[in-house]
């Protein structure tokens, strides 16, 4: 972290403090001449990159109220710079503090133009800082910091006067609506406390009269709040001397109390109320200050660097925060997984406890089921031939004229036998692809003349119908002694010589699907 230095710039001498969150530590004192500048340069040699705040506490500080048209951005900046240039011959250290807008149709902006009567006294010191590579945060003045102090001291009402006993003298700052309106510094030379308190009262009355002439405060009206920060050991004297009246309402604070309110941890021995302003310049530097942008270039670049890294850190922090949220979800999911696994394990154990009572051990149950299921599958694809043979035998009992030559029983697909040539196709074809018991019956018709083809055909047809009478069986194919189908070839030899003793032969194929 860069070293923070605060240079208290007065007309007589300049004091350098090192700032930390604890407070201020006195570093060095420089005379306000060339010798002091040289010493300052030597001091800065070992402190490259230090962050420096210059706080001026000079009597020669000019304040001038002005108005500019209601503008924004670069236009406003151009107008402000023109007004400053019109007001001050040397614009190197000048500031325009906004006092708000006039409540009329034009809404002009009120500006408080501020600069130092002698800006040249700053030049060698600012050059020394630039040469040393120090980062100039800005050139502030005690009045510019007064609104911040007034806010922290807890002033009531819209307007107040902040009176502090500084090393440079008695500083009076008039703050209107939280903005600096006017300030002045009166030198105090070796005054005893009573005299200092009386001087403070007298100067306060004077500044109020002056402000009344400027119409900054009403001539008649409610009392003006005056906050006075006095050395602790003189607080009682100040309180006694600064009695409130109809015009002024004094409120005296000791240094310790004021330091506590601005969160200044420790006070520098021998220093005045200026340390409150110095602390505020480093802790909460106001936007308004006197240095030009060119003089603050190193500081702005440093701020830019910090902003880039800060943005990265912010993004990283946001990512980490989001990752933390996601991690919480992961953690939550893991909890759910464990709960599910516990539940599954409980169910498995319960299942195992129950299956332990089974007639076979749990390990063999799966094997048993697999073996039997497989076996049942095989058994379902087979059938005993005895029932089929008995079925044929029962049918044959009704047809004494039919004699069998051969009988084939097989487990096969019936469609394999359905497409034989010269065969009468089945009325109800078997389901293609399914295994079935297939019976192929070949036989003869005896006791009927071969020439009586109608009787022979009728006998075979009736036999086939009987075989297919049971709905479980269906006719796959029949080959009659005489091919009477339109697709077949019908031939004959009619005559005495044509009579043959050979009985007409037929073939019938029936099938029954396996369950």
């Amino acid at each position, binding site marked *: 972290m860069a070293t923070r230095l605060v240079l208290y710039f007065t007309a007589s001498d300049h004091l350098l403090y090192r700032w930390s969150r604890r407070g201020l530590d006195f570093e060095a004192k420089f005379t306000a001449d060339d010798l002091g500048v040289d010493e300052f340069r030597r001091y800065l040699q070992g402190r490259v990159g230090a962050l420096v705040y210059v706080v001026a506490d000079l009597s020669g500080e000019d304040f001038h109220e002005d108005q500019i048209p209601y503008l924004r951005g670069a236009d406003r900046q151009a107008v402000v710079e023109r007004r400053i240039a019109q007001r001050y011959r040397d614009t190197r250290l000048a500031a325009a503090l906004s006092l708000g807008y006039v409540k009329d149709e034009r809404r002009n902006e009120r500006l408080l133009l501020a600069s130092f009567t002698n800006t040249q006294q700053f030049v060698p010191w600012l050059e020394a800082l630039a040469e040393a590579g120090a980062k100039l945060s800005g050139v502030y003045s005690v009045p510019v910091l007064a609104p911040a102090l007034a806010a922290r001291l807890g002033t009531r009402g819209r307007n107040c006067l902040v009176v502090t006993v500084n090393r440079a003298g008695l500083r009076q700052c008039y703050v209107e609506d939280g903005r600096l309106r006017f300030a002045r510094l009166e030198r105090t030379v070796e005054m005893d406390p009573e005299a200092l308190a009386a001087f403070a009262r007298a100067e306060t009355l004077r500044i109020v009269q002056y402000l009344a002439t400027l119409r900054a405060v009403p001539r008649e009206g409610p009392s003006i709040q005056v906050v006075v920060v006095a050395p602790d050991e003189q607080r009682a004297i100040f309180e006694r001397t600064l009695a409130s009246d109809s015009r002024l309402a004094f409120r005296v604070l000791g240094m310790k109390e004021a330091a506590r309110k601005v969160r200044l941890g420790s006070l520098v021995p021998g220093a005045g109320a200026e340390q409150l302003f110095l602390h505020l310049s480093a802790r909460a530097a106001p936007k308004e200050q006197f240095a030009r942008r060119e003089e603050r270039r190193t500081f702005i670049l440093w701020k830019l660097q*910090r902003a880039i890294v800060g943005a990265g850190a912010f993004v990283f922090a946001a990512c980490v925060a989001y990752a933390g949220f*996601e991690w919480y979800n992961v953690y939550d999911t893991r909890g759910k997984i464990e709960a599910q696994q516990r539940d599954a394990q409980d169910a498995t154990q319960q299942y195992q406890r129950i299956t332990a009572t089974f007639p076979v051990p749990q390990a063999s149950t799966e094997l048993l089921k697999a*073996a039997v299921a497989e076996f049942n599958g095989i058994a379902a694809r087979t059938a005993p031939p005895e029932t089929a043979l008995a079925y044929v035998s029962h049918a044959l009992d009704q047809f004494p004229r039919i004699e069998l030559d051969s009988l084939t029983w097989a487990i096969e697909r019936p469609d394999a036998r359905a497409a034989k040539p010269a065969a009468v196709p089945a009325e109800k074809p078997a389901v293609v692809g399914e295994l079935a018991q297939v019976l192929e019956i070949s036989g003869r018709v005896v006791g009927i003349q071969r020439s009586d083809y109608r009787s022979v055909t009728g006998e075979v047809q009736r036999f086939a119908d009987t075989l297919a009478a049971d709905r479980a069986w269906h006719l796959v194919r029949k080959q009659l002694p005489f091919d009477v189908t339109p697709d077949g070839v019908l031939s004959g030899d009619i005559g005495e010589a044509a009579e043959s003793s050979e009985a007409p032969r037929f073939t019938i194929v029936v099938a029954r699907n396996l369950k």
Partner: protein
Amino acid sequence: MNLTGEELKKLLLPALAFVLLLAAGAATIWYVQSLRAQEAQRLTAARAERQQARDRLSRIAEEEREVNEKLAVFQRLKALNIIGEERRLEWVDAMSRIRSQRELLDLRYQVERQKSLNTVKGKATNVEFYSSTMRVELGLLHEGDLIGFLNDLRNSGNAYYSVQRCSMTRTGQSVTGATMAPRLRASCQIDLITILSKGAAS
């Protein structure tokens, strides 16, 4: 404020830090999100496993009945020596015994090489089914001999006899008083199925 080249160079390091922090943040999110996705998958699997276990538990009564049913079948198979290695000698004994008991005139058989039955493809079990096809030719006086033969064969055990084909034809020989000649000739194809289980239920 326009920045000079020198000033821009001074911004390089912070810019690099910004990029690194951004990358680190993105990597952190990516890691945690991938972890979350993995855990979500694990949760889905755990839920499925739990559901499976719960379903199995709820079906326990049905499973008990199924086990009892299958156990009866299994024990029957075991009693018939269908489970275990092939017993070819026992088959030969059975054929001889049936022939003499049934007084079959002629009986010829041939058992082919054993082959594996892959009835359920891709199912990894500890149960293997094997089949050996036996071709039998019989001389019969009447068809009842074939039925009796098949019945005796089944009862002899040592395999599950799956008859695939049987055909009967007349021999054309007439019965004479002097000699017993077969009137029918039967030819059958029977699969002799055995089950080989590794660690079968006792």
